[in-house]
């Protein structure tokens, strides 16, 4: 079924009887060409591109709970491609381009909103670093703008320009950055993949891999064994757990990142703002809630919930940056499991096991990467060679010393 304004009106006038389920609820077949573990944003987008772009239809996505219940349903909805390093920037720019055509591609309005993002500058050293980054973005074909304090004040007059502890000296803006309605991303990809024949199997948990003489033959699940020509793992925060079943240790730790939303407010924030002197970034959803977050709690966790110190740290940053939000109320806080890698950059690669492929290590940059991650993973699964923009995302980069370390924090995941 095609969604359109016309269809909505037609259904409205005929009592909405014609709407059908957005995706089927199939039972697993005994064997698929490709099985993707993880019905989150990345798994579902992988399925979409596999079926629509690479023409592979005998594909299943298996999800232990409900699709879109992981990080794609619990993030701060920001998209951007303002990266510094050549290993990253082309990939995230590719992702941003895919975002720009997403709705028409999947026939689902995920409300991709290119309202712009700005990273604030508070020191001269920061300006130097952001200048280098802005240049890297432009040299890689992305857009970037370096603003001085006055330009920032013009766009965001309500930021703290009076008694800031760390005065705002400018910002690096990317106008094409913005936000997306996160749940709709999962649903849109799922609906599209389903319409191209992909089986989306919910409430089906992987309990193990069937591996014989170095080759992965399929997965053991709560719904029985499912054979597969190739298995792709895209389970974000659970990467360590799942790949552990295949006997692999990863350069990844799982950490909790909290996110927050305020009560609904009339529009105050045009775009996305990132504080450069504290842990705080914020945007305003179309419903009016301020969606904001900060740093990870900093300790390994699979609990999907955090603690007060970080809540306070984030709100301190918010008040320091924009004291006018003081009387807005924080409505809900929640936590997601972040697959924090050893250099802050992801991995999309084969594994030591034939037929088993891995996609993970997204830290908390996973949401913006959803389209490119799926596209590049689909490319790898379909052609057995990495997509040109993802060639650096290899497992062995740590062994060979070719880390992609945007923040320069080294092999300590909770600092990335």
């Amino acid at each position: 079924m095609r969604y359109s304004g016309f269809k909505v009106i037609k259904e409205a006038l005929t009592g909405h009887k014609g709407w059908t389920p957005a995706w089927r609820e199939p039972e697993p077949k005994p064997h698929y060409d490709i099985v993707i573990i993880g019905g989150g944003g990345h798994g579902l987008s992988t399925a979409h591109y596999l079926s629509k772009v690479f023409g592979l239809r005998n594909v299943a996505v298996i999800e232990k709970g409900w699709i879109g219940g992981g990080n794609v349903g619990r993030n701060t909805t920001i998209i951007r491609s303002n990266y510094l390093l050549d290993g990253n920037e082309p990939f995230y720019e590719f992702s941003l381009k895919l975002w720009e055509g997403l709705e028409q591609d999947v026939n689902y309005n995920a409300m991709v909103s290119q309202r712009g993002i700005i990273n604030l500058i508070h020191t001269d050293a920061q300006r130097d670093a952001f200048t280098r980054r802005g240049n890297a973005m432009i040299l890689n074909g992305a857009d970037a703008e370096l603003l001085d304090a006055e330009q920032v004040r013009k766009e965001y007059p309500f930021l703290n320009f009076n008694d800031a502890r760390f005065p705002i000296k400018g910002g690096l803006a990317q106008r094409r950055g913005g936000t997306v309605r996160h749940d709709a991303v999962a649903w849109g990809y799922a609906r599209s993949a389903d319409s191209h024949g992909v089986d989306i199997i919910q409430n089906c948990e992987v309990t193990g891999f069937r591996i014989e003489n170095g080759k992965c033959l399929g997965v053991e699940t709560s719904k029985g064994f499912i054979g597969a020509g190739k298995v792709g793992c895209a389970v974000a925060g659970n990467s360590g757990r799942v790949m552990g079943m295949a006997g692999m240790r990863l350069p990844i730790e799982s950490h909790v990142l909290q996110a927050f939303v305020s009560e609904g407010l009339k529009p105050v924030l045009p775009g996305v703002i990132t504080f450069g002197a504290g842990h705080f970034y914020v945007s305003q959803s179309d419903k009016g809630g301020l969606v904001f977050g900060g740093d990870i709690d900093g300790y390994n966790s699979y609990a999907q919930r955090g603690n007060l110190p970080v809540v306070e740290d984030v709100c301190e940053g918010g008040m320091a940056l924009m004291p006018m939000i003081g009387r807005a109320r924080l409505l809900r806080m929640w936590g997601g499991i972040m697959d924090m890698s050893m250099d802050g950059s992801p991995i999309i690669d084969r594994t030591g096991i034939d037929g088993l492929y891995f996609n993970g290590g997204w830290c908390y940059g996973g949401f913006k990467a959803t389209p490119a991650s799926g596209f590049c993973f689909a490319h790898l699964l379909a052609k057995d060679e990495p997509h040109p923009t993802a060639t650096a995302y290899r497992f062995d980069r740590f062994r060979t010393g070719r880390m992609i370390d945007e923040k320069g924090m080294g092999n300590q995941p909770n600092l990335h």
Partner: protein
Amino acid sequence: MIIHHPLLGPRDSSEFVYLGDASLINRPDWQAEDATEAFYDYAYLRDNPAGEHRELWFHEGGDRSWLVVTRNTATHEISKVELARDVARAQGRSK
């Protein structure tokens, strides 16, 4: 969270700085045959369990002790806290 410091008793975890897996105590022998491979494994690979996890915390806002905390990463329950120095010695580390 509250960490029961072996010397100071219950202290808010916000006084501490987290490093990571306590395996970081087992720094390989720099002269070993496979030193490079061993250091790669030591520096980069993690068990990352969803369950009991031995991990290193530094009491920055306290007595500057490094602690080995045994904590369940699924529930955050803490079952054991030791001075890292004692653990290191028990594992045969010296000079």
